[in-house]
């Protein structure tokens, strides 16, 4: 690659006092190139990245500079965004031309979401759902600030498979919703039909459509519009995509119109993964891709997505036969999507605002206790864990900072210090710092 900035050299930029050392080029695309950089004299070696624009990109997008300055002023919606920190222009003495922006460097361990879609990633269903929760939550925070993103796709999302954490990059199209002068339209396959067909500009409501597509692709490893209608397309080029995602778009699981159902051979992924998820979550997709296809105000909202993802995580249950993660509805006991065996009614924890299935890995969060708490999976108060040497023993670990008082089935009292785990099979009830936890036996 021909790098726009010299690797290994220190450059002076207007806007920062110290010279910035260009460590190495990380990658390039149609807009510009990204470099790992460090501020000279920064003892802690803060990990920063610099995106430097190609002249073409700057010429095509006259509002880019103003938008970046606006985003820098408003600040990141939350830490899941690799948000612009400072706009950099080369100092008069510098050989570089154009401009760019400084942002946090993506840490090791995060990989492009396209690897997940391509089936190349080992990740648990729980962590995919967590990633979806974080993604919906990130857009919730972004939209609450009055902003819209405009160009969500697999290409600007990164995942940490071991945790389900996400990072959203390429935040340079973000603008105040409805005021946009920007030139970006989005990525075909993710664009809302009204944007793809040239009837509207990207906005918070077209974001909701793109978000639903991205969530669907993460949860199913399939595309929401590729079913029987795709099979009729021989050459999948631009005009074909306009029909498939715009003019004739039809959700593959549309409850009222089955013309575009997945083909068992060509679209096997969708048929295997869609039944994994509870009806409430499926319903949000049916809403966004059904009525919401042509009526933007009908699309599922970010808050509905986080709530549905959160509930799905709460009802996660491990199949005793095959060990697979399942998400059966509490009131309709079902069979395992993987092995077909009936799922027994599980042990549950009754919390003031929710029921959480007792399965290793499930977590208790503040919103389970407090009706006013914003749904968040950031700081769990407790976690269900298997005993390290006897996995059949399930316990509840206190992740809070205060000790909890428990009552055993025998009536005896027990104290659960922070970090400690209490065997559930002997437990009747716990009084946590956040509220009561009642063990419900089937």
């Amino acid at each position, binding site marked *: 690659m021909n790098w726009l900035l010299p690797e290994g050299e220190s450059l002076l930029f207007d806007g920062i006092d110290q010279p910035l050392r260009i460590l190495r080029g990380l990658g390039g695309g149609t807009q510009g190139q990204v470099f790992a950089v460090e501020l000279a004299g920064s003892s802690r070696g803060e990990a920063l990245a610099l995106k430097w624009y190609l002249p073409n990109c700057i010429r095509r997008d006259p509002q880019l500079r103003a938008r970046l300055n606006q985003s820098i002023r408003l600040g990141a919606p939350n830490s899941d965004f690799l948000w612009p920190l400072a706009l950099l222009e080369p100092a008069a003495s510098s050989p570089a031309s154009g401009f760019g922006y400084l942002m946090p460097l993506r840490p090791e361990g995060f990989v492009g979401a396209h690897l997940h879609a*391509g089936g190349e990633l080992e990740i648990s*269903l729980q962590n995919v759902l967590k990633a979806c929760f974080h993604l919906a939550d990130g857009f919730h925070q972004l939209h609450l600030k009055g902003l819209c993103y405009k160009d969500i796709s697999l290409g600007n999302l990164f995942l940490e498979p071991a945790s389900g954490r996400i990072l959203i990059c390429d935040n340079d199209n973000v603008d105040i919703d409805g005021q946009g002068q920007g030139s970006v*339209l989005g990525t075909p*396959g993710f664009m809302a039909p009204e944007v793809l067909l040239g009837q509207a500009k990207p906005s918070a409501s077209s974001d909701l459509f793109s978000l639903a597509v991205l969530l669907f692709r993460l949860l199913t*490893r399939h595309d929401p519009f590729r079913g029987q209608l795709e099979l009729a397309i021989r050459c999948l080029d631009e005009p074909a995509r306009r029909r498939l995602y715009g003019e004739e778009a039809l959700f593959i699981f549309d409850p009222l119109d089955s013309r575009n159902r997945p083909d068992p051979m060509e679209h096997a992924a969708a048929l295997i993964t869609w039944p*994994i998820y509870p009806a409430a979550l499926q319903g949000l997709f049916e809403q966004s891709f059904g009525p919401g296809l042509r009526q933007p105000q009908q699309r599922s909202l970010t808050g509905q997505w986080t709530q549905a993802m959160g509930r799905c995580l709460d009802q996660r249950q491990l199949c005793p036969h095959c060990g697979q993660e399942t998400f059966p509805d509490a009131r309709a006991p079902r069979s395992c999507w993987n092995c077909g065996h009936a799922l027994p009614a599980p042990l549950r924890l009754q919390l003031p605002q929710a029921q959480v299935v007792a399965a290793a890995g499930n977590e208790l969060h503040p919103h389970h206790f407090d009706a006013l708490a914003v749904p968040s999976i950031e700081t769990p108060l407790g976690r269900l864990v298997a005993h390290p040497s006897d996995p059949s023993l399930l316990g509840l670990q206190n992740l809070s900072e205060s000790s909890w008082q428990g009552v055993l089935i025998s009536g005896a009292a027990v104290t659960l210090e922070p970090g400690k785990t209490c065997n559930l099979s002997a437990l009747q009830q716990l009084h946590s710092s956040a509220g009561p936890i009642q063990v419900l036996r089937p």
Partner: protein
Amino acid sequence: MAFPNVRLSNRPLHFIYLCDCSGSMAAQGKMQALNQAIRQSLPGMAEVARQNPEARVLVRAVRFADKAEWHLGEPTPVQQLQWRDLEAGGITAMGDALDLVAGALQSPPMEERALPPVLVLISDGQPTDDFDAGLANLMRLPWAQKAVRLAIAMGHDADLEVLQQFIGPEPSGAGKSPRRPLQASNATTLAQYIQWASTAVVGAASMPASRVSPVGEASGAAPAPGSNIPLPDLPPTLLDPSDDVGPLVW
């Protein structure tokens, strides 16, 4: 306890090099430069293929001199491709090469469903056989009409007119997309064009990139109709391909 072992269904993307191996390619190290350029471009091409879950990138190559023949006849996944050197010698049976490719773009052997194929024609001279018949034969096929067709002229002796006929007429509107033959006057430019064709163009043909509306467009606009695959910008360091290029240094 893992996400089921499934993946997005993908479509084949056939990428075919048509390489001029006439005797003149032996001069000034042009043949070696082309071999190097293709070999060097493979890791980047493999990376683009990996990033595009919707595509299965399959590479083939035709060599043409006294006659055309498959240099790499088996559609080969780019990740497994090891480039065998082409050798120069003979005349320029370019029309024959187009016939050969036409045979590959018929269904069958062409799959019923695919992404638009990418055809890259590289030449340093004039066809010595019936180019027009070969082109007509090729362009009768729907897959050839849908294909992204690129041409690279090596040096100043290449026949720009036939290369232009291969890629099709230049669209009237102004644009940065190279609807003219790319002129590689030296080994570095050649490598950059090959790199561009095998990464940026493959990316555009396999997975749609983010779209922007043209400058000065007031209302929200649909992607410009016309081309069935919008071509990406050329690398920033390259001159516009229509510009005259300096002295021939190989």
